[in-house]
C-alpha cells in the first residue's frame, strides 16, 4: 500500500486536514456553527467561477470568496437564530452569483467546477507543502484566540463585560474556518472536509468534559477516521469518502451508546 506515492500523499494530506479540521471543528461544534461550516464549503463555487471569468486562477477566487463569506457571516449575526439566517442568505447569494458568472462565461467551465471535487487519491507532493503552511498558519491563529474564544463561546455576556467583543472574535473565527475550508476543499473535496469538521468533535464532546482533552480527542478521532478510512478504501476499492463518513457516523453513535450506558449504570 505504501509503495504507492499517491497513498503516501493521501495519508499525509488527510493528516494535515484531520488536525486542522478536528481542532477548528471542535470550536465550530461548541459554538453550534455546523451550518456555517457547511455553507462555507459551498460558497467557494462562486469564487472559482468568478475568478475564471476575469482570468484569475480558480483557487485565488475560491479562497478570496470563502474568506469574504466568513467575514459576512461573522458580521451579520452573533446570536444563533440571526446567525442561521445570515448564513442562509450568504449561501444562497453566493450560489446565485456562481450561476451568474457561469452565464457570462460562455465556454466549458471544467476548471472551475473541478476545484470543488478534490480527490484524496490525487494529491501532489508540492500541494502538500502549501497545505502544511496554510494548516500551520490556521493552527497558530487558533492557538492565539483559543482562550478568549472559549470564554466568549460559553459565556458571551460575561466576556463582553470583560472587554472581549464576541462579534469581532466570532468574525475572526469564521474567517479561520473559511481559510481551513478553502485550502482543504480543493484537495480532499467538499464532503470530506465537512465530515472531518463535525463528527469527530461531536464525538469528542460526548466523551470528554474538559476542553483541552476534547480538542485532543477530536483531532485523534478525525485522524483515526481518515486513516482507517483510507486503509479500508485501499482494500475494498470503495470510495474513500464513503468509508470516512461512515466511520464518523459509527463513532458518534457508539459514543452516544457509551454515554447512555454509563449514565444508566449510575
Amino acid at each position, binding site marked *: 500500500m505504501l509503495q504507492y506515492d499517491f497513498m503516501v500523499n493521501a495519508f499525509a494530506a488527510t493528516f494535515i486536514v484531520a488536525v486542522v479540521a478536528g481542532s477548528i471543528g471542535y470550536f465550530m461544534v461548541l459554538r453550534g456553527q455546523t451550518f456555517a461550516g457547511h455553507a462555507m464549503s459551498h460558497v467557494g463555487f462562486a469564487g472559482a467561477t468568478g475568478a475564471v471569468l476575469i482570468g484569475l486562477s480558480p483557487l485565488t477566487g475560491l479562497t478570496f470568496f470563502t474568506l469574504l463569506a466568513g467575514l459576512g457571516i461573522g458580521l451579520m449575526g452573533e446570536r444563533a437564530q440571526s446567525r442561521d439566517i445570515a448564513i442562509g442568505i450568504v449561501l444562497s447569494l453566493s450560489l446565485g452569483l456562481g450561476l451568474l458568472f457561469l452565464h457570462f462565461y460562455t*465556454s*466549458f467551465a471544467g476548471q472551475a467546477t473541478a476545484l470543488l471535487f478534490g480527490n484524496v487519491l*490525487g494529491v*501532489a507532493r508540492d*500541494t502538500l507543502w502549501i497545505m502544511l503552511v496554510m494548516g500551520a498558519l490556521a493552527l497558530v491563529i487558533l492557538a492565539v484566540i483559543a482562550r478568549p474564544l472559549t470564554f466568549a463561546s460559553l459565556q458571551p455576556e460575561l466576556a463582553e463585560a470583560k472587554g472581549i467583543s464576541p462579534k469581532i472574535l466570532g468574525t475572526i473565527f469564521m474567517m479561520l474556518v473559511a481559510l481551513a475550508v478553502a485550502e482543504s476543499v480543493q484537495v480532499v473535496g467538499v464532503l470530506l472536509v465537512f465530515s472531518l469538521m463535525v463528527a469527530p468533535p461531536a464525538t469528542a464532546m460526548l466523551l470528554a468534559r474538559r476542553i483541552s482533552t476534547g480538542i485532543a480527542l477530536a483531532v485523534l478521532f478525525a485522524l483515526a477516521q481518515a486513516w482507517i478510512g483510507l*486503509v479500508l478504501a485501499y482494500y475494498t476499492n470503495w470510495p474513500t469518502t464513503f468509508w470516512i463518513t461512515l466511520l464518523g457516523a459509527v463513532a458518534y453513535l457508539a459514543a452516544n451508546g457509551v454515554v447512555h450506558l454509563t449514565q444508566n449504570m449510575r
Partner: protein
Amino acid sequence: MYLIVVSALTALSLFIAPSNTKAADLITVVAAENFYGEVAETIGGPEVTVTSILSNPNQNPHLFEADVATAQAVSKADVAVYNGADYDPWMLKLLKASPRAGRTEISAAKLTGHKPGDNPHLWYDPKTIPAIAKALADEFAKRDPANAALYRQRLASFEASLAPLTDMIAQLKAAYAGIPVTATEPVFGYMASALGLDMRNYRFQVAIMNNTEPSAADVAAFEDDLRDRKVKVLFYNSQVTDDTTTRLLNLAKQSGVPVVGVTETEPANLDYLAWMVSQLEALKAALGAPAK
C-alpha cells in the same frame, strides 16, 4: 495512534498479498476514456496492456471520482492517454500524485491544439483519433524498437479502416454543408463543423453542459428555431436529459423537426468507427434528400 495504524496495516498486509505481479516486458497503457483505450489496444495489440478508466457508458464523466484501483493503474502506467481541456481534470491530479520516471503523457487537447475552456468533446473531431493513433504508434516504437515495424503497420491499417468514416463525412458535407442545425449540448459540435453544418444556439448548449440555467433569450431563440422550423435537425445528448431538453424534444416533434440522439461516451457494444458511422447514418436519415 501511529502504532495502531502501523500494526493494523501490517496485519492486513499479511492477509492480502501485494498484487503488483505485472508482466515486465509489456508496455502498460492507461487511458482516461475507453475510446482512447481502444485505439491503444488496436495499435499496441498483444504487445501492450491497456486499462481504460471511464468505460461504463452510463456514468456521467463530469462527476467521476477516482477509486484506489484507478489510482494504482495510473501509477503503474508507462503511457497515459487522456482527453485534456479540463474534461478529465482528475486524471491530471492522479498523474501528479503518482510521479513516475519515464512515463509519457499523451493529451488529445495538446495534440490537436485545444485549451481549457474549449468544447471538450474532442473525440467527435475526425482529426483527433488518428492523431492519438499516430502519437501512440510513435511512442510504442520508441519504447519497443524491435516491434517498431509492427506498430507502424497496425497504424497504417487502422488509418485505412477509418476510410468509411472519412468517406461518409465527405459525402454528407457535399450534400448538406451550410444547413442550419441545433443541439441541446455541444457533444456533436466538432463533427458538425467537420460536416460544414451551421450549428445554432451555442450559448444554450454551453449552459446545459455547465449545469447552469440558459438565459430566457437563449431559450426563446431555441424555441423559435424549432417552432418556425429554422433548423433541419435537433441533436440531443441521449445520456443527459432533463426537463428543459425534454421540452425541446417534444417541441421538435410537434413542429416536425427531426431529432438525432448522440451519446457522449462510446456505447458498450460498438467500436469507435461503428459508433460514429451509426450516428452519421441517423443524421443522414433525418436530413433526407439533400436540399440542393
